């Protein structure tokens, strides 16, 4: 196998909380010892419920948040150890698109200024070259350059997300994190943006970390998928392998919860008992055991390791070790 493009090793992030009048210091681990590789040119999908740490992980990978431990290798450089100036240079190569395009655009900037900002910060080219670059990017995401003098509120939701994508591509990054990039969009627009992301990947040779809570969307775009629960990867495999051969009970429950637009489907919903456990007071052993119908005595005691169950299919569950 070729050298992975992004290599994440034992990445951990703890947050501390001061609670109550007596300022009792507690904390929780949002990302707990996560290791994974993202190969050049692939779409790596990350799924999980809200609060499972998937967005924290994406921020750590881009070093928009400082990790407490572990390493993120971009090629052979550990970016977590880079000094600020070098980090800035590497940021050109790593960009992110967020969920709500409206929240990530300055409402008082024109589209032109929004597009120019990353180019100016990184001192990219001359004025004329920048203008040409913006035209090129607008063409790539099918935005009309007549709109350059407009403001974000004058665009529709889909156009705003196109703008965010164009901006993130301004510095020709190789790696793009899409954090719930289509979740806030209407279904017809969601389809347009998903197709656009796949086209851009081919056109610019991009690598994606694609984060979503929607399993059907993740399945559609990803080459490989990691399922995250409670700050840990619980299952990781090639997309086809994962769906043909679901091993972790949490993945199975996620799958069965996906609403199926087919009234004829006989799918029996496998409904999870409510609620992700409290992060502050985590259950012992496997974090999923309070909601797991297969949980045994060992699951309450001991946290399962992520192991290879064959064909590169990694899973963290005691049920598979016997």
């Amino acid at each position, binding site marked *: 196998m070729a050298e992975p493009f992004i290599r994440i090793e034992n990445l951990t992030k703890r947050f501390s909380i001061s609670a109550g009048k007596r300022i009792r210091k507690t904390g929780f681990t949002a990302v707990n010892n996560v290791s994974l590789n993202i190969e050049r040119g692939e779409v790596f999908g990350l799924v999980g*419920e809200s609060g499972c740490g998937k967005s924290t992980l994406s921020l750590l990978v881009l070093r928009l948040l400082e990790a407490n431990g572990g390493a993120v290798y971009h090629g052979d450089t550990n970016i977590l150890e880079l000094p600020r100036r070098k980090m800035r240079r590497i940021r050109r190569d790593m960009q992110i698109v967020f969920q709500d395009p409206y929240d990530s655009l300055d409402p008082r900037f024109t589209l032109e200024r929004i597009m120019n900002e990353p180019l100016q910060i990184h001192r990219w080219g001359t004025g004329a070259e920048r203008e040409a670059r913006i035209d090129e990017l607008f063409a790539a995401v099918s935005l009309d350059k007549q709109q350059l003098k407009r403001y974000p509120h004058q665009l529709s939701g889909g156009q705003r997300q196109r703008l965010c994508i164009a901006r993130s591509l301004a510095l020709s990054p190789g790696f793009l994190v899409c954090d719930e990039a289509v979740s806030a969009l209407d279904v017809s627009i969601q389809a347009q943006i998903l197709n656009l992301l796949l086209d851009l990947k081919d056109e610019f040779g991009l690598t994606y970390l694609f984060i979503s809570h929607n399993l059907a969307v993740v399945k559609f775009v990803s080459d490989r998928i990691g399922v995250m629960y409670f700050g840990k990867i619980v299952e990781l495999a090639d997309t086809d392998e994962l769906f043909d051969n679901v091993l972790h009970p949490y993945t199975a429950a996620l799958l069965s919860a996906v609403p199926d637009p087919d009234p004829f489907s006989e799918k029996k919903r496998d409904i999870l008992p409510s609620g992700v456990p409290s992060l502050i007071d985590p259950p012992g052993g496997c974090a999923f055991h309070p909601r797991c119908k297969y949980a045994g005595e060992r699951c309450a005691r001991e946290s399962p390791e992520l192991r290879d169950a064959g064909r590169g299919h990694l899973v963290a569950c005691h049920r598979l070790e016997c």
Partner: protein
Amino acid sequence: MSDGQRLLEIKDLRISFSVGEDTVRAVNGVSLTLDRGEALGVVGESGCGKSVTFSSVMGLLPSPPAVIEGEIVFDGRDVTKLSDRQMRRVRGKDIAMIFQEPMRSLNPVMRIGNQIVEALLLHGAVSRGQVWTRALELLKLVEVPDAPSRLHCYPHQLSGGLRQRIMIAMALASQPRILLADEPTTALDVTIQAQILELLKRVQRETGMSIVIITHDLGVVADIVDNVAVFYAGVIVEKADKYSLFRSPMHPYTIGLLNCIPTLQTKRKRLYVIEGNIPDPARLPIGCAFSPRCAYATERCLTEKPETRECAPGHFCACHLAGQIDPLNP
């Protein structure tokens, strides 16, 4: 179906707003009926008029600025003609509503129990002595675990799924005859969404009330409703029972919607796409509102608004080409 079954009838509803020089036409002639015990799914993208339509059913649209024409007949009375006082007796009591984001609909500085009790007392559903017992019963009905202690919680102490259960409990407090659920699961995780849908289905079966689920996600309605109405640009473009709608959709918009959602079965490398955006409601096209995005649009579609026709028994569609498009290969 006999008229005795009919609970709500919307007749040629038109709602517009004046914005500066423009007139924004949010609803352009919607007619639909809801029977006792019926579960209706209302599907459409943002800005298609689905929420405006049902806000007006609840009397939640102040007029002016909204200009409301047409009739909304609930239980023999036109609710658009009711005075504020009369409307207050209907709203929340006979017709209850739950919204997408429960945190925004709950009072953040009031304990859950007090909020439910307030709803119970407001509608005079039970006597003061009984009210806490009833509140507890409601929490159990919506399957809130550990109900007695939850009564003392504030909304921020609960998860999104629990908050939505509390909203449902409050909506059920007055034993409404219609529950309007506007995107009830959109803000929730898939696993929680499945729980809430299951709950709505069960409560509807047990109480026999009618329910309207307003959503942009066809997957949500496929499971729990009887009939589906598809909204586009302020009109119903297609309405049928869910089986016939999903098996043989007729309107190109419905067909597009069904094809553009990635499902676990999607194998294609590219998704089917409905090009373009919804039209500006202040500048609606002259002909069919969908024609600028429709791959099949003909000369006639651009100039003449299609009438709603019954294209198959119980299957209504507003399209000149209804029945001529292959739903599987658009």
